[in-house]
């Protein structure tokens, strides 16, 4: 399970992200669990990704309504107030084109499908690892060319 990223991979990622003409990648961690938020925040930080956290889907939507933008959103599925499926739908309806990756402990195909159909670009089962984040980030760099 997991596995840490090797040093050369981190270096390549750092180069991509800190290139003079390419601003640093920013991310939003959306999860109601404080332990998960702390770990995901640190994982992203370790990869040089500036990131903020939100405790549920509504907070994620509100932060975007206030004008903030993130290259990457890591979205949990099960959250109180507003879950990840609803939040993803709302964000897409608002015209948010960030890379949204669903990060959930749900493993059933139909549950994953429902989440994907809400507007995700990617989906990973918890626990999140550096390797999984790198695979998500490759999608961002592919989108931006």
């Amino acid at each position, binding site marked *: 399970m997991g596995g840490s990223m090797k040093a050369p991979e981190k270096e390549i990622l750092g180069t991509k992200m800190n290139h003079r003409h390419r601003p640093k990648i920013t991310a939003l961690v959306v999860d109601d*669990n404080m*332990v*998960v938020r702390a770990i995901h925040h*640190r*994982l992203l930080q370790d990869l040089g990704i500036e990131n903020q956290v939100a405790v549920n889907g509504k907070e994620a939507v509100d932060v975007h309504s206030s004008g903030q933008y993130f290259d990457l959103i890591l979205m949990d599925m*099960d959250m109180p107030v507003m879950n990840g499926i609803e939040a993803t739908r709302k964000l897409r309806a608002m015209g948010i084109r960030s890379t949204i990756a669903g990060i959930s*402990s749900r493993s059933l195909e139909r549950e994953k499908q429902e989440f994907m159909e809400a507007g995700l670009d990617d989906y990973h089962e918890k*626990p999140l*690892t550096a390797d999984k984040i790198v695979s998500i980030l490759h999608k961002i760099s592919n989108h931006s060319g």
Partner: protein
Amino acid sequence: MERNQQLRRQLASMRQSLFDQGHLDEQFILLEELQDDANPNFVEEVVTLHYRDSARLITTIERALEKSPLDFNKLDGYMHQFKGSSTSIGAKKVKAESTQFREYCEAGNGEGCLKTFQLLKRDYATLRRKLEAYFQVLLCMG
């Protein structure tokens, strides 16, 4: 110097036994890898957060198990949260028992839920005690 070497050996032995006895899995190693000079107490901080979060959930689940009839949907919801937090720190046995509990919820098996919860609480307390002792030794090393 010798004391530090002794402590180092003690720490390594305590850590290894947590894995050998099935209390922890690779997720704990991931947490250790995120610890560095800028975040020197990351593992202990996350584990502390987990115990704060999970203690509350255990009380909530205990109260829910006292009700009659049992609300299996609510119980499953609470255990889903508990499992998420336990998984995040690599609490292997507790995670397995959480999964079992949720299966009993799905089956509407109250007795199964009660029995599994007792096992879960036992292993949760054991891991907590062992981790606290581990961090205490770590603190002694400075």
